[in-house]
């Protein structure tokens, strides 16, 4: 029997037969750790419980039954003993009766010995049952003519009856037991059994003797009948055979096994000798009393005394070495007892046989129950297997897997219905989900495209003006979602850097669209306007006119004059940018798009060389960490103040690092935009290369401004220097027939040296004809004024003509 308590890895193949509504035969391979069929488990449990119960029941029954059977067996054998006793007694009685009847006749025919023979042989012929012979023994000299002894004896020999007189000196019957005791017992006497060997085969006999009387009532002799005990022996033996070969079930054809373990019916004589025994050898040889008293105990003694006293009983004795139950009963009117010896093993064997029979029956019954249970339960749970299969199908994505056809309105039916409902719902939900997901992924793809567009709108090539060493710009933007509402922009025009930074209220797609609009407006307005405030005004009015949505944006617009370092700006509600770590003073204007009639106020500030302008949106100052703490404006200011000497890119990266460090794992809650602009006028080389044409003169003014920044001198002197340079250049352009002019400035501690190098015709202003200043200006010849100015405005003028055809004019200004 299997034990369901051991878990083992089982690969089970279950074949599901065709149901009427399926068209396939499916084989399901279940791979599950410790899988055991429910039907098997349930059945096993039921049967196990049943078995356990039945074992107890059987044990109980067996115990009770065995007792009962024991009792029954005992009763059976006791009954057998009784029957045997009765039968034997009957035979003995028959003998007695026969004898008695004969005696009466003999007593009548006693006159002559011959008549005695006649009577005897007549009687013997009539009575055949077990009587070997009958005889009469008379008192001495009863028939004087015959002599002392006269014992008429008639017996059967072969098929005839023979009579003889057997009394003689050698056969002195007067001393024999039968005569002696016969004489003493008026009511008859059974002698002990003995072997009669004189005629034919030795036969176990016993004699029944009774005295005969004459007419006057005097005892004249003894009448005796010899009863063969063989007949009794055969009878008992047949009974024994039956008892030993027939069992409850089994019938064996002959006796088998140890003779000492057979059921034995015996007759025991007065002195305890076996008078009848299945084993003929033992008759008159073995003594029952001796056998049982070998093991001396009180029981044996009691039995002996009982038997001697002619009592009936039952006892447990050890007979022939085998523990047995002995049923003993006296044979009436004799001193014999009939015993049935029932060895215990035999007794137990009978009981065991019965129990085995019962157990086998029950076991077969259990097996049948097991099989039936298993089958029935399996059939009932078959729908569950199908449901499991359907579930697998559903899991694969097939929502139309067939469900088992269940007719019963029970739990399994409920499960099936629920499953069907679930399948149906799932189908619907998945369909809906597919639609939604497709829409969502389409939307997300578009969002990605939008993000790409937005990112490309913002200038993001760094450095943006590589040819301008005086501007170092770096920016970064990190939207909170896919697209953001922050913007920044910058471009170069007329040697001025136009830039802006802004933050649209809100996030996501709407803010992104708004941001795109504002950026476009910035670009278009800056084309026309030259002042930050004008740009801001224009954007504000455009927004409020065209858009009714309640969106606005904080903005900062700045125009940095790269020549002078002047910053013209206008702030519309945005965080004040930082200039080298210091917040720029800003006027409190409204954000654009808020109120279309708002009058914006502009401001300006002079930047020092190497100033770092840092613009940002509140995404950085309001960056939250996991405990909702803000990074804070002060942190930003502090960080900018500490990093005034680094490049724009470094500053931006520092800021980004600070945000990451602060926020940690927390989500970014707003767009973060950072724009750093460093103005390094000193980075520009003090060189100017121009074409020798009229328009080029315009480039001299900004150049001189740069020079002035690098080497500041008094304003008046700076103007004079500029004038001198311009005059020198104009001269070359107008009269020099040159193609290019190169200006270079060298600043020393006490002077500024500006060289003007041209490839024109040789001309030395230092030796040119000095205009006579004493002549009134109106009378001077034209030209030459420039030379006067050159000489007057500088502290020194030198000229050199090179071998490769260049004029090099050096103007010196002391500082």
């Amino acid at each position, binding site marked *: 029997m299997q034990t369901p308590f051991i878990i083992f890895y089982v690969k089970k193949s279950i074949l599901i037969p065709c149901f009427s509504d399926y068209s396939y035969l499916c084989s399901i391979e279940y791979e599950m750790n410790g899988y055991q069929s429910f039907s098997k488990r349930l059945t096993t449990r039921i049967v196990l419980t049943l078995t356990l119960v039945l074992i107890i029941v059987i044990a109980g029954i067996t115990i009770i039954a065995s007792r009962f059977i024991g009792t029954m067996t005992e009763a059976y054998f006791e009954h057998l003993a009784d029957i045997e006793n009765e039968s034997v007694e009957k035979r003995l009685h028959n003998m007695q009766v026969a004898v008695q009847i004969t005696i009466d006749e003999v007593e009548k025919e006693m006159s002559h010995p011959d008549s005695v023979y006649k009577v005897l042989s007549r009687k013997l012929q009539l009575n055949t049952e077990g009587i070997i012979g009958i005889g009469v023994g008379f008192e001495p000299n009863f028939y004087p003519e015959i002599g002392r002894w006269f014992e008429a004896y008639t017996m059967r020999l072969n098929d005839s009856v023979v009579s003889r007189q057997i009394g003689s000196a050698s056969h002195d019957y007067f001393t024999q037991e039968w005569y002696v005791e016969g004489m003493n017992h008026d009511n008859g006497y059974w002698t002990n059994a003995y072997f009669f060997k004189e005629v034919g085969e030795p036969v176990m006999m016993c004699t029944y003797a009774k005295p005969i009387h004459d007419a006057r009532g005097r005892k004249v002799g003894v009448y005796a009948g010899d009863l063969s005990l063989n007949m009794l022996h055969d009878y008992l033996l047949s009974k024994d055979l039956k008892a030993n070969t027939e069992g409850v079930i089994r019938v064996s054809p002959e006796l088998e096994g140890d003779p000492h373990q057979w059921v034995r019916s015996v007759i025991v004589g007065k002195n305890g000798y076996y008078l009848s025994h299945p084993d003929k050898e033992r008759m008159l040889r073995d003594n029952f009393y001796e056998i049982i008293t070998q093991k001396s105990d009180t029981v044996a003694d009691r039995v002996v005394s009982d038997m001697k006293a002619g009592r009936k009983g039952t006892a447990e004795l050890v007979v022939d070495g085998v523990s047995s139950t002995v049923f003993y009963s006296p044979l009436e009117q004799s001193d014999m007892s009939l015993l049935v010896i029932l060895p215990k093993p035999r007794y137990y064997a009978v009981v065991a046989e019965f129990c085995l029979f019962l157990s086998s029956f029950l076991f077969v019954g259990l097996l049948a129950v097991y099989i039936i249970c298993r089958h029935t339960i399996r059939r009932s749970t078959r729908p569950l297997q199908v449901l499991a299969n359907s579930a697998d199908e559903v899991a694969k994505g097939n929502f139309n897997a067939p469900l088992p056809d269940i007719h019963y309105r029970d739990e399994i039916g409920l499960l099936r219905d629920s499953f069907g409902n679930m399948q149906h719902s799932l189908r619907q939900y998945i369909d809906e989900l597919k639609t939604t997901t497709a829409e969502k992924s389409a939307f997300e793809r578009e969002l990605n495209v939008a993000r790409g567009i937005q990112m490309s709108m913002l200038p993001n090539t760094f450095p943006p003006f590589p040819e301008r060493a005086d501007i170092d710009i770096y920016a970064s933007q990190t939207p909170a979602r896919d697209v953001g509402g922050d913007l920044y922009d910058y471009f170069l025009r007329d040697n001025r850097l136009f830039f802006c930074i802004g933050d649209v209220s809100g996030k996501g797609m709407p803010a992104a669209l708004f941001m795109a609009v504002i950026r476009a407006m910035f670009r278009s307005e800056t084309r026309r306007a030259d002042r930050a405030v004008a740009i801001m005004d224009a954007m504000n009015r455009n927004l409020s006119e065209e858009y009714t949505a309640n969106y606005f944006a904080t903005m900062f617009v700045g125009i940095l004059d790269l020549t002078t370092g002047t910053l013209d700006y206008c702030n519309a509600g945005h965080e004040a940018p930082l200039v080298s770590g210091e917040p720029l003073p800003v006027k409190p204007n409204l954000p654009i798009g808020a109120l279309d009639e708002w009058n914006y106020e502009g401001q300006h500030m002079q930047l020092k060389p190497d100033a770092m302008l840092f613009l940002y949106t509140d995404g950085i100052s309001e960056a939250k960490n996991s405990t909702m703490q803000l990074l804070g404006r002060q942190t930003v200011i502090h960080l900018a103040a500490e990093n005034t000497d680094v490049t724009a890119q470094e500053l931006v990266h520092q800021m980004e690092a600070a945000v990451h460090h602060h926020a940690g794992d927390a989500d970014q809650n707003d767009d973060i935009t950072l724009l750093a602009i460093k103005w390094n006028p000193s980075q520009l080389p003090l060189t100017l290369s121009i074409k020798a044409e009229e328009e080029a003169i315009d480039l001299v003014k900004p150049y001189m401004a740069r020079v002035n920044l690098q080497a500041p001198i008094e304003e008046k002197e700076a103007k004079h220097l500029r004038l001198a340079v311009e005059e020198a250049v104009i001269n070359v352009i107008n009269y020099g027939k040159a193609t290019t002019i190169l200006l270079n400035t060298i600043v020393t501690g006490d002077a500024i040296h500006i060289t003007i190098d041209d490839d024109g015709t040789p001309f030395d202003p230092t030796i040119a004809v000095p205009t006579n200043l004493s002549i009134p200006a*109106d009378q001077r010849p034209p030209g030459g004024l420039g030379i006067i*100015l050159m000489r007057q405005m500088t502290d020194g003028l030198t000229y050199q003509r090179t071998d490769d055809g260049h004029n090099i004019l050096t103007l010196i200004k002391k500082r």
Partner: protein
Amino acid sequence: MNITIDFQNGQLVAAIIGDLDNAASTVAERSLAPIYERSDCDVVIDCSQLDYISSSGLRILLNIYKHVRAHKHETFLKGLKSDVAEVFNLSGFLQLFKTID
């Protein structure tokens, strides 16, 4: 650079605002053309907002001076800034004009 011309108190007042450098001289000549159309009054050049003057600028003023003098009138320079005045001075042009503050 900007030039405005007004007729005030019987005088033609031309205000030069900004830098009268070579680049601005073409524009300046055009703007000052009205002066050449009149010949009946003094001319005042308002230099209070004149920041810079180059040789071409000086030449333009010289022409004006000649024209006005030819019609027997005076040309005044008004409100000259000191650094510009120095340029006039060092180039000898200051003597030509009368100055008023």
